[in-house]
């Protein structure tokens, strides 16, 4: 979990909705993993002959044999297709990719990407020609659709989508995945941002995000230091759209966030930080930017905590598989997506990375829970600038000056 929340504080223009999205995954220190099924080079054992010349002759003979064997073994591999996968750490582990190679008699080349920016660079580099299939979140996906870097998918080639949870089967219900009735991506994994509360301080679980503003818990609320999500929450509470705050509503959102600032203990950035603050300052409720992983972390630290999805809904990032415009064989790329949705493969993701999959229901989750998939916001730069002033403690009078 050490890497959770990396890259968080970057108050840059790219403080997009998902800055932290990649980071909430347990990172595997795989930078580049090339899966090569070719046989290991057969090395001829050196024959023990008395005559040196004979030995040399024998050796050369063996070498040639080994070479021929090598070439024969390599030949079909080079002849077969190569599927170029670009994924986040833990999404396509070597053993899983090997299984796909076996099933489809292809060669899989997995490259690992660590940030949204890197993903944009790699896919954008050669008009998508360097990769066949890649993983991207719903908000980021919009850029790729806009730039015509992804192609619509043939759902009939991905029969496993039928096994997905209802929430993910309704692709039109997930903003950003479809455009003009064409499906551009298939959900693969997600994490929502609920509320974690101290069960000792609540008789009943809090139901609304408004609990963070509740004066009864003043100084015992932990919020997350982020511009986008905080504005989204404020807007939600104000009854507006989380991702599209009207010009005239901005002042109200700012006021709301100042009120939040005045009610919280502090704004955390790292999950470890939240655990420490929770323990030291008898925190009652915290905004779980890192979702269930963070909840688990707190529980493991001995806190008697509960986790709820607020009635207003929980913001959530959703990673999908998409096929690049430069894909050499779209069918093969779709086969890959289908394979990723195999119950066994998706289950591995949950087991290994602690992330929710789209096939098996999370025992803690409720189908009725309102999940708000993240979308690009109206003006992330504006939110960032305002947020940095809010958290710096500017007085409302100053902040709300036109």
């Amino acid at each position, binding site marked *: 979990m050490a890497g959770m929340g*990396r*890259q968080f504080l970057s108050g840059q223009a790219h403080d997009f909705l998902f*800055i932290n999205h990649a*980071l909430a995954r347990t990172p595997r220190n795989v930078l580049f993993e090339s899966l090569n099924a070719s046989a290991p080079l057969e090395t001829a054992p050196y024959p023990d002959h008395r005559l040196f010349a004979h030995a040399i002759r024998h050796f050369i003979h063996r070498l040639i044999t080994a070479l021929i064997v090598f070439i024969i073994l390599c030949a079909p591999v080079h002849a077969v297709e190569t599927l170029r996968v670009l994924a986040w750490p833990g999404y396509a582990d070597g053993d899983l990719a090997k299984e796909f190679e076996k099933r489809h008699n292809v060669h899989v080349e997995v490259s690992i990407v660590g940030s949204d920016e890197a993903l944009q660079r790699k896919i954008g580099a050669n008009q998508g020609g360097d990769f066949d299939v890649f993983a991207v979140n719903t908000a980021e996906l919009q850029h790729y659709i806009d730039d015509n870097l992804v192609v619509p998918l043939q759902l009939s080639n991905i029969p496993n989508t039928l096994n997905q949870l209802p929430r993910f089967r309704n692709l039109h219900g997930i903003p950003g995945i479809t455009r003009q009735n064409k499906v551009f991506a298939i959900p693969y994994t997600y994490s929502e941002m609920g509320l974690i509360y101290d069960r000792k301080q609540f008789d009943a679980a809090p139901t609304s995000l408004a609990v963070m503003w509740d004066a009864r818990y003043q100084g015992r609320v932990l919020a997350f230091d982020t511009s986008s999500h905080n504005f989204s929450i404020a807007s939600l509470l104000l009854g507006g759209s989380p991702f599209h705050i009207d010009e005239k509503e901005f002042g109200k959102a700012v006021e709301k966030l100042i009120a939040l600032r*005045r009610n919280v203990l502090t704004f955390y950035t790292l999950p470890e930080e939240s655990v420490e603050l929770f323990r030291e300052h008898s925190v009652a409720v915290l905004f779980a930017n890192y979702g269930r992983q963070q909840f688990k972390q707190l529980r493991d630290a001995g806190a008697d905590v509960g986790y709820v999805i607020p009635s207003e809904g929980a913001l959530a990032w959703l990673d999908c598989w998409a096929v690049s415009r430069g894909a050499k064989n779209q069918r093969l790329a779709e086969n890959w997506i289908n394979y990723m949705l195999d119950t066994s493969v998706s289950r591995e993701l949950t087991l290994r990375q602690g992330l929710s999959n789209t096939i098996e229901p999370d025992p803690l989750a409720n189908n009725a829970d309102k999940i708000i998939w993240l979308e690009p916001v109206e003006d992330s730069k504006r939110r960032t600038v305002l947020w*940095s002033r809010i958290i*710096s*403690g500017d007085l409302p009078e100053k902040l709300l000056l036109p």
Partner: protein
Amino acid sequence: MLLAVFGILASGLTGYYSYSSSRAMLLAAAERDLLTATRVLSRNMLVSLGAIGKDAKLLAVLPRTTKILMGPNSATAEDDTKVVATVFKAMLSTHPEYFQIRLISADMHGLELVRVDRDENVLTRVLAGDLQEKAHYPYVFESLRLKRGEIHLSKIAINHEVGAHSGLNKPTLRIASPVIADDGKPLGLIVINIDLDSLFALLKADLPAVYKLYLTNELGDFLIHPDPREAFGFERGRRTLVQDAFEPVSAVIEGKHETIVMNIDAARKQQNRLIAAFVRLPLGDTAAKRSVIIGLSQPLENIVLEATRLGRYILHVVLVFSGLALILAAMVSRAVTRPLNEMVKAIKNFSKEKVISKLPLGRNDEIGLLAHSFHDMQMEIMTHLSELKESRLILEHTAKHDPLTGLPNRTLFYDRLQQAIIQAKRDKTSLALMLIDLDEFKPINDTLGHHIGDLLLKEAANRMCDCVRESDTVARLGGDEFVVLLPLIDGQRDAMMVAEKIRLAIKQSFNIENQYLITSASIGIAVYPEHGCDETQLSVSADNAMYLAKRGGRNRVHLCQN
């Protein structure tokens, strides 16, 4: 040669050993120095932080500070704030490493009541409308939990607080002290923002420029790094940890060690090899958990450079000593090998030619002793040899001469006779063989004794010798029988003349031990080639002639008649 090899080997090994050991010593010394410097740096940092803490405490106990906090809206508040701001300014002006000093209220969401910022070179007092609420910052709520006189040291972080003037987006450490009312209620706090970079610039000023400074938090995140891009990685979403760059530091982070010094010689494949020392420095009196790790590094090249210089020097020494070893070997060979060679030559010379060559006798060492022994042996051998030669000569003489008269004996005579005949044959000359028998010798011998007889024979021999030429040979055949060889004679007359001379000489009386003795000689002569062509015929002829002389009445000469 072997000696030279040993010499070079010894000096080479000594050189290598001293090079490697002094390199290790240099490294160890450099590591020690570095660790000491790091410790001193940590101590200085602690002292500096203590001094800053005192400043904060001092400001926190100013009566006017409390007064402002007690009644921020009172009539005198404006004046009091002005005074306190002046004090803040004074303090900021004497401490260039201070970014900002603030008085923050515990109420009003942590509103700043007095705040002076450094803005480039100007000290700016932030006025009412621009003051901010800070209650949600840990340095505020943590400080308010402290007792009077205690100090809070914040985490070191980039200051993102908008409006912080010079301090904005700079690595900052906040040192705070609470202002506590008499009833123990926290009223507010004093916060001093420290410019981490200039603080360390001050601390590092006395260190050699090659020393590079590192500072990390308790988790190992770099806060100061020689490469600024490596510092505050977590701010950019990419943690840069000291334990990744300097693996052994993880022991310090885990609390196993307080200090560590390392040599990143082999551990890292990077070309910039260095030695580094890290010291953990616990911060704050209360929150013992907070600590920083201070590190210094020094490129290994500098130290290795010294070692290399030393190595080069040692190499020179080794070369000089190798040269010396060569010279020594040459000298030893001159001193030992050459005299030995000379002696071998002398021995060969001696055994081959029996010549005594020069020996190194002038030396007092073993070689001299050997030479002396050899010389003595040579001398002894030479003595023995000459003795042997002498006795051989005597033997030889004895074998060919008559012991009594010293005349050649029969063997030698016949040898000469043969030679003379061969010579005469070749030169076609003549020679004569005379056989002489003393008459009436036996009675003398019998009556007067052998002694007298011997003396007579001797004297007779002398007289015969006097009668012949030097080239002639007189020999004794035994008893009273003598024989004379006269080579190169002109004719029988010559022989007759010599024979007559001898007969007359013998006829003279002999005075032997005062006795006068009378004897005579019967002489038979044979001449080559008339009376025989070889020694046997000649002998027979001479014998016959002598017989005839005897029969003729003795004391006469008879020439062989054919």
